[in-house]
C-alpha cells in the first residue's frame, strides 16, 4: 500500500529536502498543493480532480458568480465552475511534537527531521483543505496536548494555523494514549482527524485512543512519519544508541541487531495497521524522503471513500 505508492510517486513532485529551502510554511504548502493539483489535471488520476472541481455548460438561472470568465475568454463559451463538495467538512490535524520527532539521519543539512516533514505535510493538507473550502484545525501534542486551534474554513484561519506550526518547538516524551483520549473527548463535532506522528509508543495505548476517536464518529487517518534510517536500520558498526526522549543508552552491534530491529518494526507496524483497519482507520507510512504529494493522494482517496 503506502510503500507501493511511494515507489510509483511521480518524480515531478517536490522532494522534502528542497521544501526545506523554502522559507515559510505557507509557501511550502502553496508549492506542494498547487503543484499537486496541477499534476492531477495532467495525470490519469481524473477521479480526484472531478471530485474536486468540474465545469459544466452555463444554464440560464445559474449564479453568474460561478461562471468561469477566463474560460469564456479563451473559448467564447460560458462554463460554470461547480464545486461538488459543499459538505463543509471539519478536518483536525493532530501533529506529534514529541522529541523523537526531532530525529533525522541524513548527512545533508537540508534533509528534514521527522518533525519538519510532519509540519510540511500538515501545512500542505491544511492548505488543500482550506482550498476546498473545508474547515481545518490543528492540535499539537506530545504526552499532553500542547496547542489546539479549532477548525475553521477561512483563509485567514489558515494563516493562523500555519503560524502556530511555525512557532511550535519540540516537546517532551511521547505518550499518545492520553492526548488521543483527551482530543477524542474535545472534538464533539464529527470530522476528519489526521494524526501525523512517528507512533513510536505503546501500540495498545495508541489503538485505545484511536478507538475512542472512532467511537465519537470521527474519520481517522494515520500518517506514520519515519526517517529512512528507522525504516531500514542501515547502521553497521558497534554503536551506542541514545534515546532522544529518555536519554537511555544502549550498546548495540548494529549489523547483528538489524534483523531483530526490522522484525520488531515490522510487527509493530503490522499490529498498528491491522488494528487500525479493524476500526476503519487508514494507516500510511511515510519516509521523510518521500514527496508530500503521496500523502495528499492518500488523503483525497480516503476523503472520497468517506463521502461515498
Amino acid at each position, binding site marked *: 500500500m503506502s510503500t507501493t505508492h511511494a515507489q510509483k510517486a511521480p518524480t515531478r513532485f517536490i522532494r522534502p529536502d528542497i521544501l526545506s529551502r523554502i522559507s515559510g510554511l505557507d509557501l511550502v504548502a502553496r508549492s506542494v498543493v498547487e503543484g499537486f493539483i496541477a499534476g492531477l489535471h495532467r495525470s490519469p488520476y481524473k477521479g480526484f480532480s472531478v471530485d474536486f472541481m468540474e465545469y459544466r455548460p452555463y444554464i440560464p438561472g445559474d449564479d453568474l458568480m460561478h461562471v468561469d470568465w477566463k474560460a469564456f475568454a479563451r473559448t467564447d463559451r460560458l462554463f460554470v465552475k461547480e464545486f461538488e463538495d459543499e459538505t463543509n467538512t471539519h478536518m483536525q490535524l493532530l501533529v506529534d511534537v514529541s522529541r523523537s520527532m526531532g530525529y533525522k539521519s541524513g548527512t545533508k543539512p537540508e534533509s528534514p527531521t521527522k518533525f519538519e516533514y510532519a509540519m510540511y505535510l500538515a501545512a500542505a493538507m491544511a492548505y488543500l483543505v482550506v482550498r476546498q473550502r473545508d474547515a481545518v484545525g490543528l492540535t499539537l501534542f506530545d504526552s499532553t496536548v500542547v496547542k489546539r486551534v479549532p477548525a475553521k474554513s477561512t483563509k485567514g484561519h489558515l494563516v493562523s494555523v500555519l503560524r502556530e506550526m511555525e512557532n511550535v518547538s519540540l516537546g517532551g516524551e511521547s505518550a499518545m494514549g492520553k492526548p488521543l483520549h483527551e482530543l477524542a473527548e474535545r472534538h464533539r463535532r464529527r470530522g476528519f482527524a489526521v494524526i501525523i506522528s512517528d507512533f513510536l509508543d505503546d501500540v495498545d495505548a495508541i489503538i485505545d485512543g484511536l478507538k475512542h476517536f472512532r467511537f465519537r464518529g470521527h474519520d481517522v487517518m494515520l500518517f506514520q512519519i519515519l526517517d529512512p534510517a528507522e525504516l531500514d536500520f542501515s547502521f553497521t558498526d558497534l554503536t551506542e544508541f541514545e534515546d532522544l526522549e529518555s536519554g537511555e543508552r544502549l550498546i548495540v552491534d548494529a549489523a*547483528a541487531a538489524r534483523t531483530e530491529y526490522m522484525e*520488531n518494526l515490522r510487527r*509493530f507496524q503490522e499490529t498498528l495497521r491491522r488494528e487500525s483497519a479493524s476500526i476503519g482507520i487508514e494507516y500510511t507510512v511515510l519516509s521523510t524522503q518521500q514527496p508530500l504529494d503521496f500523502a495528499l493522494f492518500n488523503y483525497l482517496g480516503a476523503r472520497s471513500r468517506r463521502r461515498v
Partner: protein
Amino acid sequence: MSFVNAFFLAALGAMAIPVLLHFVRKMRAKPVAFSSLMFLRATPQQQVKRRRLRDVLLMTLRAAVLGLLALAFARPFLPPDVVPFLTGEENESVVLLIDNSYSMLAEGSNGSALDEAQSVLAERIDAAQRGDEIAIVAFSDFAEQLTEFDSDRELHRQIATGSIEKTGRATDYLDPLGLAVDILGSSQHKQKRVVLISDMQRAGWSGALDNWKLEPGVSFDPVRVGAADTLNRYFQDVQLRVRRAGDDALLQVDGLVSSPDDTGFDVELLVAGIPVDDISLSGRGTARFTFRHPASRTGYHQGEIRLDADALTIDDTFYVTYLVDEKPSILVIDGSSRGGTGLIRPDSYFLDKAFAPGVGTAGSSPYDISVRGRAQLRALPSSTDIVFVSNLPSLSSAELRSIERYAAQGGNVVLSFGNNLDADAYAQSLRELGLASTASVVIPRQVQSGHAIIGQVDWRHEVFAPFAGPGGGAILKPEFRRYVRVQPLDGVDIVGTFDTGDPFLLEKQIGSGSVMFFASTLGNSWTDFPINEMFVPFVYQLARHATGDDQVPVMYGVGENVALPGSVGTTWDVQTPNGQVFRATGDSSGTAWFTATDVAGNYVAATTARRIPFSVNLDRRESDLEARDEAEVYAGVVPPAVDQPVVEEAAVTVKAAEERQKLWRLLVVAALLVFGIETVLAHRGGKQKQ
C-alpha cells in the same frame, strides 16, 4: 633476505591504514542519537567482545594483504645457498672466467673494469645454489685455474676479493674457454655453465676461435664489464735504430700513436730517467713521431717514451733499451795483386767499395775496413769483427791455427777463391778446418749449357732472410763462370747451392765464431756477382751476420722468455722493474732462460763479467679497447643450434636468484588467499548478524 625493488618496502606503511581505521571506527562504540530504542535490545557483552575480536582479526588480515602486496612488489629473494629448495632448478657446474688482462685496468666512472669484474664474480658466487660447484679461472693470454670444482663459497669469495691479480698481459679468449671445457669434463652435474666476465676486447678473439664452439648443452653467459666509451691513447708501433754517421751514433725513434680524439697530447723521450726530447701531437687516428737523440756513448742505454696519462695509464709508457756499439771493423786479406788489372778486379776492390763507399770522405762509412797482405793472417787481431780471406792458393798450418784461434774467440772468417787457387792444397786446409773433404774448380759451361747461378738458399738464414720478400729474387741472377766444388763435412751448414747442386755458401761454427765458405770470387774474375745489384746488400748481411752473433735482443713483450747467452752454469741475476731479483742459470746449451717478464718496464740482467739490459713492453694490441658486445660474443662461442637467451642471461646475478625463487608469486598468492579469507569472514559475520 634481499630485495630487487627495495623502494617498494615503503608501501609497508600502508599496513597502518586498516589499523588506524580500526582504531578510529571500530574499537569504540560510536554514540548515535536515535528516536527510540523500543525495537532494540543491548548486544550481550560476550557478543560485543566477539565482534571486537573479529574486527581485530579483519584488521590484521587487511593489514596483512597490504603488507604482502608491498613485499611482493619489492620482489624479495633469499640467498640461494640458504634456501636451495626454493630455486626450483637442478644444481649446475659453473666455470667462472675472469679477465685480468691489462685492458681491464681501464678506469671508468665506477672504478676499473677489473673492480667491476670482481663485483660480478662475487655476485655470481652469491647467486649460486648450495649444491652448485664452481671453478674460477683468471685469464689473460694464458689461463690460470684458481680453484678446482668446489662448493666452498667462502673460499670462492676469498678468491673473488683477493686472488685476482692485475697483469700486464694481453687477452686471448681461446685459452680460457678451452680450459673451461676441460674443467667441465670433470663436472658432477648435468647442468653446465661457463660465465665469461671480461671487457670482451675484440683483439682477444683470435682467428682460432672462428671454428671453435662450446659443446651443445653448455650454457654460456658473457658478462661485459668496463665502460663502453673508454678512450685510450696508446703506442701503435715504436721502432728504434742506432744509426752511425761516421764516428757519431744517433738514436732514432720512430713511432705511431693511436689517438681516439682530437685532443692534443705530448710524447716525451726520457733516457736514463732524464727527459731529452718531447713532441706535441694532435689529431684523431694515428699520429706519427720521430725522436733523434745523439748516442755517442757506447754501451747499453735504457729509456722511456711517455704519453699523457689517460683512462688506461699502464700503456702510456713504452720502454726502450738500445745498444750503441763500436764501429764494426773489417779486414780483407787478398792474395790478388792490389787493385787488379783492366776490368777484372780482385775481391778486396769490391769489398772496399761496398763497405767504404765514400772514397775521399773517410770516416763516413759505418765500418772500418782495411786491406792487408797475407802476413796479417797469422796474427788476426781479436778486435776485428770479420776477416775476408780471398784468392789464396791454400792455407798454411800457422794460418789455419790463427783462423781457428780467432774464430774460437768469436771472430768470423769468410773464405773466397780465385785464380791463385791450388785446389788440392786448399782441400787439405778445408779438411783441417772441418769444412769440406775435397775441392776442385768447376767451369759450369763445360758441364751444362750455361754458367751456374744460385739455385737454392736457406731463406731463414740471416744472410738471405732480407731477400725473402718481393724483389729478393734478384739474388738468383748472378752468373758464376767458375766455382770451387767441395764436399761438405758433417756439422757444416749448407746455406746455399748453385743450380748445379754444388754448395756455394757453407758455414761452420768454431767456438763462438764461425768460418764461412764462399765457393767463388767476391771480385769479378769468376762471376759477375760484384756488379749485381744484390752484391752490396749480400756482403752487408754477411757482415751483420758475422758481427751480430754475440748481440742479444733487448726488446721483448710481456710474457716472452728472454734467452741470456753464456756457457753451461752461467748465472744471471735479473732485476725487474719492481726491484725484485731473479736468478737464471745457463742450461746445457749455455742459454739461461728468464721467464718472469710479467711486468712492462726496463730490466737488467748481469753476471759478474757482463751486463745486458733489456726492455719488456705490453702487447700493443691489448691497448685497442674496441670490444664485442655480448650478443656477438655469444654467437661466436655457442653453437648456432642452441637457442638460449643472450643479454638476459648475461644480466643474471642476484636478479637471477630472485627470478628463480619467484617469492613474489608466493606473496601474491598469499595476499589473495588472505583477502579471500577476509572477504569470507567479513561476509560471514554480516550474514550471521542478519
